């Protein structure tokens, strides 16, 4: 058995890299490559069918895409979505605050409302609102606990037209869901924030709108946009109260001319377009509310593309250069605005 008597010297000194530096090979993700290849293949297949399969009937699609009835249906869909989202979220906000309030009665009332409108399917609710005339032939204001509406009285059937029933149904349904989303957001704000605001004497309303809500918004927004996008497509159920929104209009047309696939495609593409618009809006609104959460926000895809084009243009103007110059160029571009290290790396990689 041998024993080493003198311990080896610890080598904690700064020194230049060894003359023969070892190569570093990053981990290769073979499975990731394989699945990516499969995904690209499937996508290519799908796009190929768009061009090769005559059953899509793109000429019919083109004919009906800007059809007047379709556009009217689309407008109704957007309008219903907009108004129900506004009423739904406003009411949802009130319900959320009621649930979080100290009053047991308000809190239970809000809980009951949410429970009820999350339990009853939207379609059932719409039909009930539409047929409320069976229960109450007239509605109005008068003596409490009587049907003596001496102040004003309305004919229920006339009051609750298809669109009123639809707005009522969609808004109340939406309110129940958004109440929970908003409540979750409010709960996510640190109690210390409220305490600091109270210690500074900031009044209750300002505390809520200036301090709590902007911070809660970060948690609320992703779910809220989910809901609005759901609502946009969910409006298609209002066909049960005979409202000619986008989907119902398309159905009417294809029942007449039997061009089912191209007309469903018309509806699908319109829904996709507005979902895309909402998704882009979501990106920018979330970005706005994430101020102060990161040391520096990453650039938006648009900013990144613009910088890339600027780099390309710069390269084309100056012609080929040595690697060192290129590095400097990238740094100069990076210093023109707040660019994260991430995108500087991207620009540098591109320049090489």
């Amino acid at each position: 058995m041998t024993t080493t008597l003198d311990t080896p010297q610890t080598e904690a000194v700064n020194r230049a890299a060894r003359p023969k530096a070892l190569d570093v090979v990053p981990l290769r993700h073979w499975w990731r490559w394989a699945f990516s290849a499969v995904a690209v293949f499937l996508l290519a297949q799908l796009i190929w069918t768009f061009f090769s399969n005559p059953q899509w009937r793109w000429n019919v699609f083109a004919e009906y895409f800007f059809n007047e009835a379709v556009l009217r249906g689309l407008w109704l869909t957007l309008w219903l979505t907009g108004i129900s989202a506004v009423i739904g979220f406003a009411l949802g906000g009130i319900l959320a605050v009621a649930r979080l309030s100290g009053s047991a009665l308000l809190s239970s009332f809000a809980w009951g409302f949410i429970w009820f409108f999350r339990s009853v399917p939207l379609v059932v609710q719409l039909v009930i609102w539409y047929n409320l005339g069976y229960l109450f032939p007239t509605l109005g204001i008068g003596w409490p606990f009587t049907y003596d509406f001496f102040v004003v009285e309305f004919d229920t059937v006339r009051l609750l037209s298809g669109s009123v029933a639809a707005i009522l149904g969609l808004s109340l349904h939406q309110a129940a869901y958004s109440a929970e989303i908003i409540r979750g957001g409010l709960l996510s704000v640190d109690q210390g924030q409220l305490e600091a605001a109270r210690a500074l004497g900031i009044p209750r309303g300002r505390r809520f709108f200036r301090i709590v809500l902007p911070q809660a918004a970060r948690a609320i927004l992703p779910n809220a946009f989910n809901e609005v996008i759901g609502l946009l497509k969910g409006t298609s159920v209002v066909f049960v109260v005979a409202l000619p929104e986008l989907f119902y209009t398309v159905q009417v047309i294809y029942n007449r001319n039997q061009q089912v696939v191209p007309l469903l495609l018309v509806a699908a593409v319109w829904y996709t377009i507005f979902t895309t618009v909402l998704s882009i809006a979501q990106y920018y609104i979330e970005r706005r509310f994430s101020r102060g959460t990161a040391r520096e926000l990453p650039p938006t895809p648009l900013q990144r593309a613009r910088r890339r084009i600027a780099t390309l243009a710069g390269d084309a103007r100056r012609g080929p250069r040595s690697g060192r110059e290129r590095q400097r160029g990238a740094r100069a571009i990076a210093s023109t605005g707040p660019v994260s290290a991430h995108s500087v790396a991207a620009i540098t990689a591109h320049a090489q």
Partner: protein
Amino acid sequence: MTTPTATAAPRETRATGRAGLVEIDGVHKSYGAHEVLHGISLRVEPGQVVSLLGPSGSGKSTLLRAINHLETIDGGSITIDGEYIGYERRGDVLHELPEKEVLARRTRVGMVFQNFNLFPHLTALENIIEAPIGLKRARRSEAVAQARVLLERVGLADRAGHYPRQLSGGQQQRVAIARALALEPDVLLFDEPTSALDPELVGEVLRVIRDLAHGGTTLIIVTHEIGFASEVSDHVVFLDAGRVVEAGPPQQVLRSPEQARTQEFLDWVI
């Protein structure tokens, strides 16, 4: 039950009639069956610096928070220049005031928290001007000018546009102090202002507090920094289990305490 009353020797500031006299008289506070404050009495003269020391759970933070009515009290009274913060006296009964009036009175008292509690979605400058603008004390331009002076004072003039997360802990706490000063309070409360800081950042915050001491504002500081308390305070109060154990000038309480409990605590911390 007798409770030691800590009465500091009146200083010359009293004659000048400056505001910021804090009188705490027989304050009781319980959380359920657990009594955290057993009738505490304390008098802090205007412009004085008082440190509250004691082991955790001794009730020092609760007492501090009761001063600006972030905690309600179950008995006794706390007044600032003779005015109750959260209550109104009618006869021999204190009635809790509606929040609006509490908020108005509370602006006489500034507070600095252990975890800074800066508003993360507002820049340093916006944090400072939030209260003056929200309370309609100043127009925006005036509030901004004042905030810049305050930032200069805490050595952060170049950080006005930074968000709290872009600042170090020490810088955040200095912004929080500037924010508390924006309403020009007569009394400033510090709840363990350096406890959440890395050791190398403690000094910069203590320096700012030291600059505030004896500048006319009454300072009440809950702290574990015995050395700092000894240096900056006119008066040190040692609390344990919701009672004032010992109070007096720092040389006396911290160098040669009369009570064994105080000595025991000091042996632990130093």
